[in-house]
């Protein structure tokens, strides 16, 4: 690491689109407006909320001391042409381990166009190439999907989830830890290509938080609960919220794509299709459910075909699996229609669920020492057997 005493103040950093500069008194109105935003309240614990002008005055006064006293570099991110305020970013240097932690917030009006990831790249390059830091870190709430995308776009590697890591605003948060070391490639690390699949009739897309009520209405159904492992019955609003939040977290992590299946014309949520990825994405398991009103219209088959094509083309999967309960004739018929071959019955593969009675159950021992388990019929489709549909 360089001797930081040589640096009187962090320099301005810029590219064609944005400039990272010192905070000015004239930034007050824009900062106050940006920080009184719901997502900043939810995910940026160090920013006061509601944010008053006095908070800005205090921040501005302290801002000049960040670097000399705390080795904290702080920049205002502005449009390179108009100087419009877009975001704030900081680099907190932990000298004892020659590492830096990046933190940021993005103004609501600047989101969704790569401002934040560009700013992180500029700070990253300065930290590695000029300061010669040995490690960079960035943590973000597990539900802050936008921020996780920023970290991935800047090449950071997801290293783990820190449970109960931060305490603020009356709750403890679980945070994803992203890290980067000087030898890492600086290209974006996209965990899964954007899953937006269409066939004219159906649209498959990531779940959004406001899908929860439609998920609850669809899953509060005896058939869905019966045939889908671990679907609770009755299905509460909180179950649907957890389903949607969990889908978004796992999609960001890249190990599971559980997606919304919608009617292309009306946008109505019809069901869900999921792809669980194993073994470096060589093997994946497909699952699906369709809401009662939309069954017998080929929705599950159409959605599965879109996801099968996506798995074999965009993801490079070699082997796709479907596991069903022995009594689920509809699902087995569909698997065969999709070209899957039955490979065997996995005995007692799943722990049974209270209140759900299914065929193919390994009975419990008479003295009750061994619990019952449920069998699963295993189907698979190989890349070599797959026939892509003609456009």
């Amino acid at each position, binding site marked *: 690491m360089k001797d930081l005493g040589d640096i009187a103040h962090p320099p301005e950093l810029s590219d064609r689109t944005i400039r990272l500069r010192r905070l000015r008194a004239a930034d007050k109105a824009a900062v106050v407006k940006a920080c009184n935003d719901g997502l900043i309240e939810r995910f940026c614990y160090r920013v006061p909320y509601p944010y008053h002008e006095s908070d800005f005055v205090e921040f501005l006064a302290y801002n000049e001391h960040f670097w000399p006293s705390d080795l904290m570099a702080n920049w205002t991110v502005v449009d390179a042409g108009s100087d419009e305020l877009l975001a704030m970013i900081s680099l907190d240097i932990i000298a004892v381990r020659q590492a830096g932690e990046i933190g940021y917030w993005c103004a609501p009006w600047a989101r969704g166009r790569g401002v934040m990831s560009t700013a992180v790249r500029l700070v990253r390059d300065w930290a590695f190439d000029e300061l010669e830091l040995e490690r960079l870190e960035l943590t973000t709430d597990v539900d802050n999907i936008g921020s996780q995308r920023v970290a991935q776009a800047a090449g950071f590697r997801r290293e783990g989830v820190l449970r109960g890591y931060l305490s603020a605003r009356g709750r403890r948060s679980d945070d994803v830890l992203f890290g980067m070391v000087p030898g890492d490639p600086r290209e974006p690390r996209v965990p899964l290509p954007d899953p937006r699949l269409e066939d004219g009739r159906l649209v498959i897309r990531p779940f959004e938080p406001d899908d929860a009520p439609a998920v609850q209405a669809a899953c509060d159904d005896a058939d869905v609960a019966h045939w889908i492992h671990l679907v609770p019955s009755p299905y509460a609003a909180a179950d649907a919220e957890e389903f949607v939040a969990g889908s978004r977290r796992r999609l960001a992590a890249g190990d599971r794509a559980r997606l919304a299946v919608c009617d292309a014309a009306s946008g109505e949520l019809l069901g869900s299709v999921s792809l669980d990825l194993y073994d470096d994405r*060589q093997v994946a398991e497909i699952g699906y459910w369709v809401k009662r009103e939309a069954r017998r219209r080929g929705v599950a088959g159409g959605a599965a075909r879109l996801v099968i094509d996506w798995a074999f083309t965009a993801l490079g999967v070699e082997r796709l699996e479907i596991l069903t309960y022995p009594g689920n004739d509809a699902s087995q018929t569909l698997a065969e229609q999709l070209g899957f*071959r039955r490979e*065997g*019955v996995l005995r007692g593969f799943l722990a049974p669920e209270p209140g759900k009675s299914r065929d193919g159950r390994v009975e419990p*021992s008479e003295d009750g020492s061994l619990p019952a*388990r449920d069998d699963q019929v295993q189907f*698979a489709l*190989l890349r070599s057997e797959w026939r892509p549909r003609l456009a």
Partner: protein
Amino acid sequence: MRDLSEFTELPELSDGRLIVRPYRPDDAPAVAAMCQDETALRWLPIPDPYRLSDAEEWIGDAERRWCEDRVASWVACDAGSGELWGSVSVRIDAKNGNGDIGYLVARGARRGGVATGMVALVVGWCFDDLGMGRLQIRCDPRNEASRRTILRAGFQLEGMLRSEQIIRDERTDSVIASLLPGDPQPGRSAP
């Protein structure tokens, strides 16, 4: 099944003849010798050639594999001499109470029931100590020795998973077999 966070360290298991114990750094030369072997390289997804540094990396990663991936891995040794005879592992899916067992026997120790012995020890730990509900073993259908071990340990064949693994850049099929706690297990008293 039991909460795995109670198990910060893997146990040592023994049947009097065999000891199945966690890896130690000084196992690396014997592990490298065991893996740099025609049979091991043919059937297992391990680096080829297998060098001392591969063994050191594998051993150094063992604690992380257990804590993060819930893969328990051990070496099997002669209870008397301590000579390294094999290795065995189980990947645990705690949510479903399932485990996937893998194993390797050193060239000089084959045909002596070592594979069956170490699988039985791991089976005992999984069912009796962890309360797991199902164990499975997958192996290449052409691997006759491993198929015999699977059946000898009481596992029942369930099917053939096609193109399921990659071994030396070749996609290979796997036979899948399972053992449930209530199944008859040779050499083990009924639970």
